[in-house]
């Protein structure tokens, strides 16, 4: 059974699902996706990218020089897409279960019924 992805890893894969991104672009996208809660620094980001590359989830796409600075773009591989889908499905099931329980809790609170 695959291990659940850690939050920064999940957010990096989610960011790349929108298309190839370079390091700074990824940092900005992860920040936006997490509403500023997960703020990656380049040293941490590249460590995570190396690991995702080793696992075959991410690969280098292309390079360009902008204002004299090297930008290397990364993209999701088919394995990375599968890992993201699997994790999303796992999280969806948890959200569904929690929502159902909370819905039951709301109904109980309104009717005063005791759940079986």
């Amino acid at each position, binding site marked *: *059974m695959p*291990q659940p992805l*850690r*939050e920064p890893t999940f957010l990096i894969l989610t960011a790349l699902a929108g298309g190839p991104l*370079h*390091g*700074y672009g990824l*940092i900005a996208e992860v920040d936006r996706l997490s509403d500023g809660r997960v703020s990656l*620094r*380049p*040293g*941490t*980001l*590249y*460590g995570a990218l*190396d*690991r995702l590359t*080793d696992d075959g989830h991410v690969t280098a796409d292309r390079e360009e020089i902008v*204002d*004299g*600075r*090297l*930008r*290397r773009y990364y993209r999701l591989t088919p394995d990375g897409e599968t890992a993201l889908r699997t994790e999303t499905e796992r999280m969806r099931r948890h959200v569904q279960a929690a929502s159902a329980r909370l819905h039951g809790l709301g109904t109980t609170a309104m009717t005063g019924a005791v759940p079986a």
Partner: protein
Amino acid sequence: MSDEQLAPAYRKLLFAYPERYRAERGAELVGAYLEMAGDRRRPRLADATDLILGGLRQRLRSAGMMGLADGLPIAAALAMAAGSALAVFFLLTVEPGTVSTVGWLRVGPFATLGSVVFVAWLLAAITAAVAPGAPTRFAVGGTIGTLLVVTVLSKKSLAMIQVDGLPAYIIVPLLGLALIALAQARDNGWLLRLLPLVSAITTAVWLKVGDADITRVARYESCCEPSEPLPMALSTAALGLLLAGAAAAVALGRRGDQRGLWALTILIPPVMLLESMWLDNLEPFRSLGSLVSSNDINVAVAGMSAAALTAVALPLLLARLLPLLNRRRDTFDDPVS
């Protein structure tokens, strides 16, 4: 500030990365930092920390030892739990000591300055439960600072009052545990967050309802006989740490997750430090310890020698063995290929 001035400063901070990695990825890393820099004039402390830790992680990756970084949060929680148990043990056995203390510094209801270290450790354990991550690391850092201050002040005289602290055979293992406990992760689950508190409470209950002999410890001066109550307490903590690490290795290993095995590897050196008294009777650690004259210090040296040996040898061994084991398991799982 222009790239010409800021880029060299960031390039210097890449020193922790392996040379080959610097050549391949250095420009890209520095480029990302420059894009984030805005009008900053020099790298921040957080940038330096990020790049140094990134470099160390990269060196572990090059050596096939990334598992060490993965196992560290588990090892940190277990080390914190072992230290919490010891803190409660010493606070409830030695620290309420009623030995004559005329001319010696008492700290509230406690007999020695060592009590401050144990209280700090328990505060760090509470912090781990309610605020994991940076606040816990800060609390553990404070505990380490307290331990160092107590070490410096021990056996000194302050304004005509003698200060009693902790012996080296207790200070060194506590320091080893605290250094590992510094790696507390922010995203620990409830089990790892509560483990130190559970360990402390279990020890308190065990002392209150358990073996009455152990509660009659007058002082810290039980050196250097492994069967004395205090060395026995350290040995019990070592055994608990070893069993907890082994349980994590087995439980996670059954799911194909090797973090537990790496955590166990990280915990062996502090286990050696806790078993210093016993190692002092074992060659070659006895000979290494005997290089210093004080009994208390030579016990600590014996433990530190064993800890240093295992800290270097075990990760190297595991990094070589795991690929072989994984290959064998893959062959077993899929005999056709």
